[in-house]
Every structure is written in C-alpha cells, then in structure tokens.
C-alpha cells in the first residue's frame, strides 16, 4: 500500500456530462517526489484540490477516491475528514496566499497553535524556530514583519514554513516558483527537497516546466485535458516518452517547432481520448476513452497504441 493512493478521480461541474478530470490515478510513496506536469488548463491543480477534498463550489467529485494510508479523505456524507489535515499545500502566489494584515510570525504560529494545541507564546517561539529552519536570516526580526515588507522568495519560504510546521505526510507544492526568479527558484527547490527528505513526507510537485521536473522529481504524471497521459519514473520518461502528447511536449522544448502547425492548447476533445483530434497517430479507436495501461511495473500510458505494439 502506498502512502497516498488516488484512484479513478473523476470531477466535473455539477450537472455537466463532461468531466473536468477523468479517471485520474496516481500514488505517492513516503519520501518520494511525484511531479504533475501539464500545460495550463490540463487539470493539475484540480487534481491536487480534489485529492484534498477542497473542490470549489459547483464542482463535484462523481467517482474515485483518495486514500492516505488506506484511510479515505472524505466521509460517507462527503465531508472532508481530519485525515486531510495531514496534507499541506504551498500555493503559486505566496504574497497573495498570506494574510496581509497579520504579522508573518503569527501566521505560522497560528498553524502550530491549532494543530499541536500549544499556547500562543510557545507557538510563536516554535514559529520563529521554524522560520530559521527554512533559511530566513534573522527570524526574530522577520517574524514581526507583514507580508508586504518581504520579497516574493521570503514569502514563499514563510509559506513553506507554514506547510511543514505540522510535519505533514504529504506536501503539495502547486507551481511554488512560477512567481519567482530563477536564482531564487533554485534556492526554493533545494529547500523543498531537503525538508521533504528530513520529514520523510511524500511530495506532489505541480509544474508546467519539464526542466524543473528533471531537477526535482522521482516520478512524473503527464496531464492533458484532465486526463493522465503517462506516468513513469522521470529518467525513463525523458529518455523514452511513450505517449504522443509527451513526445510532442518534449519536442517543443528541445527542437525547433514549425509555427504553421496548429497550436495545442486547452482546446481538447470532449469524447474519447482528450488528445485524439490533435494526435498524429490517432485512429478510429481513439473515439473511446483509453484507460491507463501498465506497460512495465512502474510505467503506465493512456493510449491505445500501446496495445497494438507490445514491448
């Protein structure tokens, strides 16, 4: 049994026959970094939110389940249980995710206070210690600052301090560095990696940058149009991409692309394979939904071509 198991997650607008996420499955082991990679609108963030049971109003989960150590995240009535509290999330825009009217030390302190049932003063002390732990110079001074007085990189470190303060089992990092510069990005990547191995938590790392995947992750799930296209160890995916979309995505980074070929964006097919109408290898069967097929013990691909070409 894996630490986190997500199985057949299907999510859609209430009443709509067209799902936003379709049979999304993945798993995370302790100490492992799983990357969810895809272009905007591919459902990466939605998959993470659905895992935590934090779907926006008007969107419902019609099928599937997320389990942390075998325990379901939602109870039979559909309410989020305390199990989900063992998952922490780091958001994309750190400055917007922090409370602008609260000193950052207290924001981190509140999380510790609530989850570890400490007093206010002890929690604040623990928060200051935590700030030092995530590499903030002069944590006592910074703890008294408001978010607007700090840079984006500092705010992201504070978000990370909040996320790891309660020693989560799973840490979800949703594009943690898109708002930051590359030199700061390198610092944040290192911090997330070292904290994850220290706590021994699993990490779901959401990104659109395959370079970041190569740097950070152990395994990767490629998403397109709310469907997991391919799941594989990172090294094998980069060396030998199996799904036509993965190949296409890698090619657009490493090779010159002819601009006259149609853009591939969020516009996807509603029936069958989500990549079907843009896939150069598409055939009649692609009008049906391709399940995620296991092609080797640790790789799966959602494409009918894999059936006809056994390895």
């Amino acid at each position, binding site marked *: 049994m894996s630490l986190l198991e997500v199985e057949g997650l299907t999510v859609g607008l209430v009443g709509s026959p067209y799902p936003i996420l379709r049979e999304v499955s993945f798993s995370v082991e302790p100490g492992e970094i799983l990357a969810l990679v895809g*272009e*905007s609108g591919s459902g990466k963030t939605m998959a993470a939110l659905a895992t935590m049971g934090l779907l926006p109003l008007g969107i419902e989960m019609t099928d599937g389940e997320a389990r942390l150590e075998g325990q379901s995240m939602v109870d039979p009535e559909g309410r989020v249980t305390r199990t989900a509290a063992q998952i922490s999330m780091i958001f994309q825009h750190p400055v917007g995710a922090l409370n602008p009217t609260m000193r950052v030390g207290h924001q981190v302190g509140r999380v510790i206070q609530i989850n570890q049932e400490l007093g206010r003063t002890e929690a604040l002390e623990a928060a200051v210690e935590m700030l030092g732990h995530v590499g903030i*110079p002069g944590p006592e001074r910074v703890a008294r600052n408001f978010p607007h007085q700090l*840079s984006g*990189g*500092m705010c992201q470190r504070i978000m990370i301090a909040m996320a790891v303060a309660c020693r989560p089992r799973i840490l979800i990092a949703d594009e943690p560095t898109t708002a930051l*510069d*590359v*030199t*700061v*990005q*390198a*610092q944040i*990547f*290192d911090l997330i990696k070292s904290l994850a191995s220290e706590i021994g938590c699993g990490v779901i790392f959401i990104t*659109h*940058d*395959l*370079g*970041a*995947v*190569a*740097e*950070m992750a152990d395994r990767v799930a490629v998403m397109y149009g709310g469907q997991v296209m391919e799941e594989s160890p*990172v*090294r094998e995916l*980069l060396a030998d991409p199996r799904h036509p979309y993965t190949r*296409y*995505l*890698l090619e*657009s*980074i*490493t090779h*010159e*692309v*002819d*601009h*006259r*070929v149609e*853009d*591939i*964006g*969020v*516009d996807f097919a509603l029936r069958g394979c989500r990549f079907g109408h843009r896939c150069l290898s598409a055939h009649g069967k692609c009008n049906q939904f391709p399940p995620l097929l296991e092609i080797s013990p640790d790789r799966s691909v959602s494409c009918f071509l894999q059936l006809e070409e056994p390895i």
Partner: protein
Amino acid sequence: MTLLEVRDLYKTYGHGAGAVPAVRGVDLELGGGETVGLVGESGCGKTTLGRVLVGLNTPTSGDVIFDGDNVAGRLQEAEFRRRVQMVFQHPQSSLNPKFKVSTTLREPGRLLTSKSSEEVEERIVETLRVVGLGQEYRSRRPKQLSGGQLQRVAIARALMSAPDMIVLDEPTSSLDQSIRSRIISLLKDIQEQRQVSYLFISHDLSTVRKIAHRVAVMYLGRIVEVAETRALFEDPQHPYTRALLSAVPSLDMDNQRKRIILTGETPSPTSLPIGCSFQDRCNLVHDRCRVETPQLGETQAARSVECFAVQ
C-alpha cells in the same frame, strides 16, 4: 550596420532619498536584422530600458541613437513611431478589448502616410497571413481569442507599420510551452523575410537561447555581460551570469550542471552598496570590488564583461 546605439543611458524614477535608479549607465548596440536578447531577473531594469528605447520613457541622461539620429523624446514624430514598435508582455491588456482585430491593425496602418486606405486594408490581409491567422479573425475581438492568438495579433499590430526595430517585452512569458515555441519560430521567420531587428526582453533563458544572436545580461540596472548567444551559454564569464545559467532547470539529467546557488537576494536599488552591485552575492569578490565600480570591458572578441576578477 548598427541600427541602434545606446550610450551611457541613465533612467531614474523619483527624486531625493527615494529615487530608484532603474537603468544605470547602459551601453548597447543593435544591428540591422539582429536579435539581441536582454535577460535579467525581475526589477533589474530590462523593461525600463526597452521602454526608453521606444520612447515611452524619457531617459534621465545618455543618448539613444537610432539610425544616426538621437531619438530621445521623439515619440511625437510619426516616422519614428512607424520605424520602432513594441510588443508587450500581456496581450490581454495591451489590446483594446472593444476593438475588432481589423480595427486594432488599422491604427498603426495610419502611420503609413503614403498609403491609401485600400492599400492599408491589403496590408491587414497580408499581415494576418504572415502571423498565421486566417481572414476570419478580422472580425474577432480579444475576448474571443486564446493567449497564443492574442500574441499573434499583437505581433501583427507591430508589423503593420513595416518597422525596422521591434522591442519585444517578455512576449512569450504568459504562454504555454508548446505555444511559446511556435511564437519564437514565427518571430524568426518574420525576421528572415523582413530584416527587422529585435530587442527580445525576457527572464526565460531557454527562450532567449532559441532566438537571440547576442545576449546582454542585466543586473540591477547595469549590463554585466554581453556576448554571442552560443559563447555566453557555453562559457559564461561574469559570476552572476554563471549563477543565473546554472540555476535554470535542465532536461539533461545525467549532465546536470553543477549548480551555483546564490545566497541572499538582490539588494534594494534605493540603497546600493559602494563598488560592484553584485559584491554581496559573488563568490569571486575581493577588496577592490567594495571600493571601485567595475566597467564593461571587452575580454575577448565580441564579448564584454563587467567584473574585475574576469578582466
């Protein structure tokens, strides 16, 4: 042939103690039909420099020589506006939401004073074809277009007046990877056909590598290194360039460059240290850097670096 020459350019916002020196003594050349990539992290002054070059901001001091004329403050002249155009970062906010695509393109067409309105209409047809949009897009409004299509319209608008130089300010940073590659290849095609010069401003080094002939690296308002693209990426010399390049996540897992992680963050431009502005984060720093400001000096053919340790 040098089309644009920038000499000792300064641009300071504000006065007195709160003055922010955004550009501090920049020298730069741009040849006809050449692409110069201007890279640097947020707040380094690259956008300000771009805006000064097209005349949207007036320089505090220094010269901008365009085709033999000093053009600072020439924005009122239609002929200058015709010859120098700009593409902005967010096409969503730089295109008038109420204008149809054809109206948007007709505006700069008015700068072509020698052309009749029929000729301008013909030019709209032609320009849309060049940027890869069908004639059916003429009557669309920005709301009806995707990010990639909007950026194509923004490029078409810049091309309408048959400019000699286009300043592209982060034209691809709001786009997905696959669409980004297309826009780059489109820009290269246009350059080949029309011999237009580009100043390509970006923080995304891998995109700059694909399009630029030469690259200038900016740090805190100064250009710290200029070199041919290939030379710069293969053998960066300034310590900041080295750190910046090493921080970019790479797809090559076996050959990950040894990362140089910079400590600390960019100092505030309102309280710059005496001497080299990179001194507090530099691994080659010595006493001279703390008293004297280094100047951009040629270290090899077609390469200039602003660093005592390298010179």
